[in-house]
């Protein structure tokens, strides 16, 4: 008897990383039930639908949804997203909310605490409250989406659960509007929470103001901003906030919370009819995000009799995010503005109050209950000030009994972001595009636009504090009211451009504007290479075609290397290289700065520059405090113009004083040594092998569900921004014919099921630089390009 129940228990219980084998493997309800493609036919009853919804599938498994009204449309979107991507849909919101301990146990607790202290749940609550109060109609649609997701979940039996639930042994829970709000917070975190205020504070204390300004200038010596330099700003009549008396708080901060990937960025551009080979404006977008499976994007066509939109959606959010309708096309890149600031808080004895404006102000407490699989829940009391949550205090990454650091983040301000996408999906012209953008607070984006009427435009949209010069670069004194955000830049004064003379608009996460824009814009890690390659390309000839757009998406030119390598080769003393080193040297000399898959130059460059950078900024290699080293552009600028600056010296070598020239040689030798090892291990160091691009499953790139060694060139700071696990996550080109003609592809597949052939079927074409024609249906009539049709119908009693 004991043996029988013992075996039962062993096969029915998850042990460590091993799934419950009986439950997991049995053919009745285990993974064998997931060994299938998705159904694309039949009739499905969805309670609460007002009318019938037709869903056509094309051969790429893209659903084309024809609903009779918006309520039914977003219900159907929720239902279909859940049908194809349920596990990812839910998992992303667990990650956003800081709930991973519920799935993984105690190992995820530190992550969860960080997300709670960042105020992810708090921000989502603000978003929901704002929507309910100011825009109940949009809230109703968000609820419709939730109803659609739940209609799918309610139809499931345990055998139908996606593989990941079976593997981790848990069940899907009901969806709610708050989860949509959490997803938007997740995007805001990913794209607008990479401030370095605390690191900069440490750097400032370490090197002094003069050196800080040299290493981290507000503007580089070259700027090719998103909004063209010649833009006239005279219409702006609200001045920048005046500079108060202020001193940065020179605290030492040992450890900071994890930042999102600094490569999260994107390209977009559009050419006017006059600059287009066919006379129609053409628009392109490619957001650079982590390369994951299931992919962050899910492509759909969403239509009602009043509108017809097509493009990439994000599971969890309503409507098309990057796409087009019959009249306009739009896409986003990250605007990378500093919308996170930090304040030092001084508490009273029992930490119930904090100092502000010469008096004591009440602290409020938000108790975060973090459930942990197999254990008692963890309670974390997060203290809130009027600035925002006190992320760091004695209970979290700090030892100071009576002080803490509070975060002021635009993500906590609430807002109606969902409205922007819903309105863009229906917009017919420039004015309606501008009006849709007004609701967008964060993460600030460069929204590119083109219309069949012939307009092109680009708005940098977000809610930006009108800061005084230098505000928010460093930790500020939270008790001084002058340090608060005083006001916001009026939305109509956000930087934008419509039909510029040069005939094109573009953005690639570079500086939004030049020095002439009348508000303070701090260099928060702006890109300085992709933008110049893109703009030079569009200035290089008169007319551009869709083929030119494809070529630019796939452009592998390494401008960064081209600006330093020739200088290093000319400067460094190569007379004493060994024979092996000489071979590498000659390979480098022959490189034409293209990061193509068969080149060795990109690998040598990576090794060489990486080592050079670390040698140069050895002053910043410090485990006991959190520091940030200078950006690439300024690094290369200093190497070329101030080669004998004291920063060039390697601190460890006490009796010698190195200059840039010495560093070039030292780092080259180290690089050559490592490359020889790689050659030994892998046979060669051609770029494709060296880089080894992969699309990793969301569960820490679980090898069985991931794709490795994808043969694609490019790298970060290159227009084809594909590095190891990061890159163009959705490539779209739309020509503004009537109706628009579009191409699109992403490194994944429509299905979230690793057992489906549609799970990763786009990857090879994506890597090869190919595109798929997007089938923009103009009516719900079946064509021969439709592989199956599903009908969603209201419940029988309704």
């Amino acid at each position, binding site marked *: *008897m004991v*043996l*029988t129940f013992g*075996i*039962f228990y062993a*096969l*029915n219980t998850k042990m460590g990383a091993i799934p419950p*084998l*009986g*439950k997991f*493997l*049995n*053919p*009745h*309800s*285990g*993974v*064998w*039930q*997931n*060994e*299938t*493609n998705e159904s694309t036919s039949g009739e499905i009853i969805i309670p609460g639908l007002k009318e019938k919804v037709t869903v056509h599938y094309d051969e790429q498994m893209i659903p084309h949804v024809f609903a009779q009204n918006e309520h039914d449309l977003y219900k159907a979107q929720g239902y279909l997203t859940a049908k194809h991507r349920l596990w990812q849909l839910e998992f992303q919101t667990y990650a956003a909310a800081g709930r991973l301990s519920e799935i993984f146990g105690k190992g995820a607790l530190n992550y969860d605490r960080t997300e709670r202290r960042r105020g992810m749940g708090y921000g989502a609550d603000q978003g929901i409250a704002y929507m309910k109060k100011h825009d109940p109609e949009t809230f109703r649609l968000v609820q419709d989406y939730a109803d659609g997701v739940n209609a799918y979940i309610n139809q499931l039996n*345990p055998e139908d659960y996606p*593989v990941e639930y079976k*593997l981790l042994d848990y069940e899907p829970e009901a969806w709610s509007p708050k989860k949509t709000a959490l997803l938007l917070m997740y995007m805001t975190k990913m794209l607008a929470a990479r401030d370095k205020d605390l690191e900069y504070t440490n750097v400032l204390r370490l090197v002094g103001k003069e050196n800080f300004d040299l290493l981290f200038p507000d503007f580089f010596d070259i700027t090719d901003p998103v909004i063209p330099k010649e833009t006239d700003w005279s219409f702006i009549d609200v001045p920048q906030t005046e500079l108060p008396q202020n001193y940065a708080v020179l605290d030492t901060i040992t450890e900071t919370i994890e930042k999102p990937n600094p490569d999260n960025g994107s390209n977009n551009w559009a050419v006017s009819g006059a600059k287009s080979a066919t006379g129609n404006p053409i628009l392109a977008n490619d957001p650079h995000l982590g390369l994951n499976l299931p992919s962050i994007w899910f492509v759909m066509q969403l239509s009602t009799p009043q509108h017809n939109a097509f493009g990439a959606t994000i599971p969890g959010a309503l409507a098309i995010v990057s796409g087009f309708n019959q009249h306009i096309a739009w896409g986003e890149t990250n605007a990378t503005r500093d919308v996170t600031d930090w304040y030092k808080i001084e508490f009273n004895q029992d930490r119930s109050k904090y100092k502000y404006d010469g008096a004591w102000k009440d602290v409020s407490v938000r108790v975060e209950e973090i459930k942990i699989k197999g254990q008692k829940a963890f309670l974390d009391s997060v203290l809130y000030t009027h600035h925002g949550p006190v992320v760091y205090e004695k209970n979290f990454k700090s030892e100071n009994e009576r002080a803490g650091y509070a975060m002021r983040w635009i993500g906590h301000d609430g807002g109606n972001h969902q409205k922007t996408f819903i309105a863009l999906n229906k917009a017919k012209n420039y004015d309606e595009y501008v009006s849709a953008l007004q609701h967008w607070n964060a993460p600030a984006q460069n929204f590119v636009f083109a219309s069949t009427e012939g307009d092109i435009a680009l708005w940098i949209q977000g809610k930006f504090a009108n800061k005084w010069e230098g505000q928010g670069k460093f930790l500020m004194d939270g008790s001084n009211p002058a340090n608060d955000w005083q006001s916001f830049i009026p939305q109509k004064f956000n930087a934008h451009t419509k039909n510029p003379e040069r005939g094109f608009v573009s953005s690639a996460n570079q500086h939004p504007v030049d020095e002439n824009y009348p508000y303070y814009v701090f260099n928060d890690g702006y890109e300085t290479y992709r933008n110049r390659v893109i703009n030079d390309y569009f200035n290089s000839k008169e007319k551009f075609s869709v083929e030119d757009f494809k070529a630019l998406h796939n452009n592998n030119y390494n401008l960064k290397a081209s600006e330093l390598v020739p200088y290093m080769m000319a400067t460094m003393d190569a007379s004493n290289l060994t024979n092996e080193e000489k071979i590498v040297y000659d390979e480098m000399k022959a490189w034409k700065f293209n990061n193509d898959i068969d080149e060795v130059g990109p690998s040598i460059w990576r090794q060489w520059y990486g080592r050079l950078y670390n040698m140069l900024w050895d002053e910043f290699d410090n485990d006991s405090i959190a520091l940030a080293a200078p950006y690439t552009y300024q690094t290369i600028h200093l190497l070329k113009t101030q080669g004998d600056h004291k920063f060039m010296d390697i601190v460890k070598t006490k009796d010698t004083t190195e200059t840039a020239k010495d560093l070039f040689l030292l780092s080259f030798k180290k690089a050559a040594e490592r490359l020889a090892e790689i050659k030994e291990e892998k046979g060669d160091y051609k770029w494709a092998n060296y880089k080894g691009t992969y699309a990793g499953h969301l569960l820490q790139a*679980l*090898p*069985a*569900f991931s794709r490795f060694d994808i043969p694609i060139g490019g790298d970060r700071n290159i227009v084809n921004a594909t590095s190891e696990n990061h890159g163009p996550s959705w490539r779209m080109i739309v020509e503004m014919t009537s109706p628009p003609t579009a191409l699109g592809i992403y490194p994944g597949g429509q299905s979230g*099921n*690793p*057992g*489906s*052939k549609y799970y990763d079927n786009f990857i090879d074409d994506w890597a090869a630089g190919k595109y798929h024609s997007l089938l923009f249906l103009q009516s719900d009539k079946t064509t021969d390009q439709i592989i199956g049709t599903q009908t969603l119908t209201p419940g029988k009693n309704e």
Partner: protein
Amino acid sequence: MSRNIKNFIVTIVLSALLSLVLPWWSIMIGTLLSALFIPLKKAAVFFIPFLAILLFWGVYCFMLSNANDFVLAKKISTLLKIGGDPYLLILATGVIGGLASGVSAILGKLIGALIRNQ
């Protein structure tokens, strides 16, 4: 028909029927019942239901997976570190089912013996 074959067939039929209403451990109930009513002797007590469920699950898995070109079976086989071979995964699944039902049959036989002795 020999008792062994009878038990073999009844085990599969009962388990298949119960699997329509019960979770994966339906096979444990199915074999327990068939061991209760069709008791076997010696090693056959374990091995007949073991083979029956191994065959039942093995064939069922093969049918499901074969229809989808073994796409997922290969991945799960990689996941469980048995080399990415779908057939090995089918065998492993069968053995797990067989093992569960074999011990369950032993329990059934014991219960049967207890009842009959009273």
